[in-house]
């Protein structure tokens, strides 16, 4: 059976109907974008940092096999068990085997987009492993059985009453609790005993350092450090693109990451793991899951530079007004729209169209990924691969014909003006015109530029 494309527009429409959620979501993300700008203006070297970050990442990607081998050798030397996973299934199998070997039945974990990519919880839970997300936002999403809606703030689409309801059901707190402080405290109190009795801990990671075999985890809540230091078994999962060559390169990225993400100078915790703690065991799983193939896509390989800060999401007018869940994918927003089609071209064929092409994503990207250009390039690829929806395809087809023939175009444009002023609403606003769903069509102009030019300039030009 052919997989159906995600109906982003329809999901966004549902999101748009809920005014309080929409308004908060839009304003919260825009606030994060503004805080990022404030940080940027404090650093005269900001653009140099971006250029440097981009160059380091491009160099690393071009030399990825060598750096991965160097990382592996150093990590092993430090006593870390290094595993390689070609895809999500292999990743989950590896985690399952490590846990089984230790008889581990409860796993506490901090946020990791890669484990979401691999759908790891769904694999482990039927095998008798209780997986507890310890990041507050991620835990809210786990209890509500939803994907994270944002890569940095997973529950950003929810309001206090939503969280109160979820916690009441699971933590037996007051369903009418309207105080974020006491709800956060409820999470702390619920998580502590689980953390203290867990058999194993798991984290994601932001960077791998080839030079030292170190991996780095940047977080705010302290849950990742608890998850990695309380149990004696620590498993870390990272995508193979997370490498930097030298320890000193981290300076560039740590200075950019949280400033771009939240507008804070640095995350509260920046943790460097170079080997197991005393008496402990440490595993790292290097996950490919499509990345090595993406490296060969001439127009899209630079998307692998991404450091998952979410700045492109915060600035995107479409994302802010449609919500992360409407993308129907692990990665949402502009960065999601250019990497999701590499996972499944048909399923995510609609996502590169969820953009106004304003280019803001590219401007805020700390590693200078040309996101909006890749969105455009994906549209072309999808059209060539016949993955355009019917209405879009037909409209493009007609537009192509019109634009190619000046006479026909002019007649049509004049016709449009007449149509806009005389046709009844049901003819103008229907399923063939999704643009008009939440907007009024522009007022018809009295005269087109072409006819004005013909009347005024052309005569004069001829007279001269």
């Amino acid at each position, binding site marked *: 059976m052919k997989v159906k494309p995600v109906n982003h527009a329809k999901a966004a429409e549902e999101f748009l109907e809920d005014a309080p959620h929409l308004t908060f979501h839009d304003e919260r993300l825009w606030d994060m974008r503004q805080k990022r700008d404030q940080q940027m203006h404090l650093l005269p070297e900001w653009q140099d940092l971006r250029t440097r970050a981009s160059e380091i990442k491009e*160099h690393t990607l071009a030399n990825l096999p060598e750096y991965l081998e160097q990382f592996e050798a150093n990590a092993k030397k430090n006593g870390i068990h290094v595993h390689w996973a070609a895809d999500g299934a292999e990743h989950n199998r590896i985690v399952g085997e490590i846990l089984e070997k230790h008889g581990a039945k409860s796993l506490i974990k901090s946020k990791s987009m890669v484990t979401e990519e691999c759908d790891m919880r769904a694999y482990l839970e039927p095998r008798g492993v209780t997986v507890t997300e310890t990041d507050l936002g991620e835990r809210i999403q786990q209890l509500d059985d939803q994907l994270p809606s944002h890569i940095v703030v997973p529950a950003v689409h929810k*309001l206090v009453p939503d969280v109160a309801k979820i916690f009441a059901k699971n933590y037996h707190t007051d369903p009418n609790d309207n105080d974020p402080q006491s709800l956060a405290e409820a999470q702390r109190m619920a998580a502590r005993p689980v953390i203290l009795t867990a058999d194993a801990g798991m984290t994601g990671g932001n960077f791998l350092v080839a030079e030292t075999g170190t991996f780095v985890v940047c977080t705010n809540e302290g849950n990742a450090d608890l998850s990695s230091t*309380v149990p004696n078994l620590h498993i870390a999962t990272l995508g193979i693109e997370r490498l930097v060559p030298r320890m000193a390169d981290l300076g560039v990225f740590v200075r950019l990451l949280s400033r771009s993400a939240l507008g804070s100078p640095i995350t509260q915790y920046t943790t460097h793991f170079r080997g197991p703690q005393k008496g402990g065991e440490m595993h790292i799983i290097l996950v490919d899951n499509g990345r090595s193939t993406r490296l060969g896509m001439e127009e899209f390989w630079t998307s692998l530079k991404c450091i998952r800060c979410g700045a492109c999401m915060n600035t995107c007018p479409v994302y802010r007004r449609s919500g992360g869940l409407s993308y129907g994918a692990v990665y949402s927003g502009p960065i999601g729209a250019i990497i999701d089609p590499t996972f499944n071209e048909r399923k995510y064929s609609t996502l590169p169209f969820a953009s106004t092409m304003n280019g803001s994503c590219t401007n805020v990207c700390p590693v200078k990924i040309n996101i909006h250009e890749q969105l455009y390039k994906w549209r072309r690829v999808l059209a060539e691969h016949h993955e355009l929806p019917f209405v879009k395809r037909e409209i493009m087809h007609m537009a192509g014909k019109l634009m190619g023939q000046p006479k026909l175009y002019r007649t049509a444009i004049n016709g449009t003006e007449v149509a806009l002023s005389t046709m009844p609403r049901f003819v103008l606003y229907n399923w063939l015109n999704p643009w008009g769903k939440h907007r009024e069509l522009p007022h018809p102009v009295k005269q087109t530029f072409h006819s004005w030019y013909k009347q005024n300039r052309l005569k004069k030009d001829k007279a001269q």
Partner: protein
Amino acid sequence: MSSRDTILATLRANRPDPAAHPLPPVAMLGDMDKGRDRFENSLQILGGQILMPQEGDTLATAIARRFPDAKVICSAVPDFEGTIRIEEIESPQQAAATDVLVVRSPFGIAEMGSIYLSEAQLNNLNSAAHLTQHIVVILSEENLTANMHTAYLERPEFHTANYGVLMSGPSATADIQGVLIRGAQGVRSLSIWWE
């Protein structure tokens, strides 16, 4: 072929031309001020505090004043007593009862107000730094470095410690409707004691 070899072979076949992407020199950018004022300003932005001595104060009296209800005060430094020494704590479960942990950090970063801790400062009980309710960090002005570039270049700890954390203020979250809460799941407060 193992997954490792398959991944590496695919990367070799697919990668862009390495010659077109040389490695830039190590970056050394931005403000090189490593002064105490800059550190304190940055610390305050991230929610950290300065434990200010009053006339005739010792660390012990300052802690008693700041944390009057603390029952278990754990010391990880030789020159402060507390109610229990970190060497006496045998497990994370036992460490979870700590109200205040007193540690000495080998260095701080002025740009961020960050302090560094590794297993060397925590007697290999790394979880103690996160299970305690509050942490008091002894820091010397002489051990401040200017920014992230200088920290990674100058400090040998990044190449030797198995576990090394930069703590920048206390734990925090803004995951519920964007409201910033200091004291999420790790320490509820982080205070600096200058020595």
